[in-house]
């Protein structure tokens, strides 16, 4: 369990991982040494698994296609779904992979340059895998919100008075 101060620190890092320990210290009242040590621990414990900016590729003009793929899998005795999941997560095309409850088993987010790329990956790599029973591919048409960030429309601007009591 995280302590309250660690929870606050981790939340701040999750919102802006560019902040240096000195800056984090100013905002949390924790010492820079403590913060550096905690971050090192969290990296070691795989609590912090990476630092990535959130990029809206749709705005770059680069072509990119994403698809959500539902996969039905035959679970393997002694391993359940973990064995196949371990194998699947190695593919760089697969950006996210979840075990789901409900009508299918695994949910994959796949990214490719073209629809053809994605279709080929599904047909050749995914559907042909042993234990995969069926796949259903849903192409993403438009991204409205991702990782908690609204991507559509302008940011709400505050229309506050410049001075108020």
């Amino acid at each position, binding site marked *: 369990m995280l302590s309250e101060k660690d929870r606050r620190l981790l*939340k*701040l890092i999750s919102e802006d991982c560019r902040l240096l320990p000195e800056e984090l210290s100013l*905002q*949390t*009242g924790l010492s820079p040494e403590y913060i550096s040590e905690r971050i090192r621990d969290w990296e070691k414990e795989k609590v912090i698994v990476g630092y990535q900016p959130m990029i809206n590729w749709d705005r770059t003009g680069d072509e990119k296609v994403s698809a959500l793929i539902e996969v039905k899998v035959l679970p393997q005795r002694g391993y359940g779904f973990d064995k196949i999941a371990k194998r699947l997560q190695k593919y760089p095309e697969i950006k996210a992979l979840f075990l789901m409850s409900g009508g299918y088993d695994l949910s994959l987010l796949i990214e490719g340059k073209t629809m053809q790329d994605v279709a080929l990956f599904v047909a050749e790599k995914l559907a042909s895998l042993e234990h995969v029973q069926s796949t259903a591919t849903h192409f993403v048409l438009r991204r409205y919100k991702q990782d908690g960030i609204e991507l559509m429309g302008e940011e709400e601007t505050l229309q*506050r008075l*410049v001075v*108020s*009591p």
Partner: protein
Amino acid sequence: MNNYLASHVASLPPSGIRKFFDLVATMKDVISLGVGEPDFVTPWTVRESGIFSLEEGQTMYTSNAGLFELREELSHHLSKTLDLSYDPYHEILITSGASEAVDLVMRAILGPGDVVLVPDPSYVSYAPCAILAGASVNYVPTYAKENFRMRVEDLARVYTPKAKLLVLSYPNNPTGAIMNREDLLPIADFVTKHDLLVLADDIYSDLTYDKTHVSFASLPGMRDRTLFVSGFSKSYAMTGWRIGYVAGHADLILGMTKIHQYTMLCAPIMGQFAAIEALRSANEAKNDMVTAYDRRRRFMVHGFRQMGLDCFEPLGAFYVFPDISKTNLSSEEFAEQLLKEEKVAVVPGTAFGPSGEGHIRCSYAYSMEQLQEALKRIACFVERRLANS
């Protein structure tokens, strides 16, 4: 046409803030730390409720006291969060912002000859409302070295037997000071001894850091002597919705309801529906806002201390109130020269009462980027002044 104005209105001094607002409004590219409202938009779930109430055709008057559902929800909320118990039928009145509630308290209780004891510095409305109610004001000075808490000895010094009402506004605007239980207890004894009523303006009660708010009304024997005033503006970033409330003894609430029914009729219904939703499901969003304020607060205090200025650590609201007397400038001079030279707007401490001299109020209800830029500019200004002094 000035001679047509009632004399007590004509003689009312304009708000010190207004004067400064007019000055800032003429300038371009100003970074303002002068705003006394959250920089967050009302949480979506709350906005959505307001919209839904309109779609449902909820565009009528409500009862004078406000939607019963809201009063009931508030009654639960106050009991859960501040250990206060108010009957939603007779002891809670929904108002158009806490500002109306302050006015109602003054008008329901005060008359010519009465005196109100007001902390100095404090929010700009108390004295004018008291004067408009025919009363006069004695200021209770508070000091940086005492963490801007009201002390009973300072209260006793300005007390007069004509005093009927004491205002307690903690967490305080502009200082950010809070009062703990042990600070409030001697005040409670004083209030009992002199048979005073108390207007407890708890509008910033949700915005405290490291310590939880203790409401004066929750102290032994103080419930019926206290008119508990608060609202949704600061806690839930709902300034424009204009929803506040006052809770207290049924007889006093009834008196206020009479004034409210003849002058305001009721608070806006859309805002009342939104407020119900705020209490039910925006507390997580509120906590996130408090966390953000807390980070900025630490950053600001550190920034002013780095400049070589004394800066009392505020534990509530969203203001810092640094001491600028080392620059040999008065609060007003500091604010005016800073605005002209560095285009940063702050509010002179004197806008909140004479004890604000030597201080400026800086709101930290701004993004971190804005605060960083503002502090950089203020630091340049202070450095120049300290070099000259």
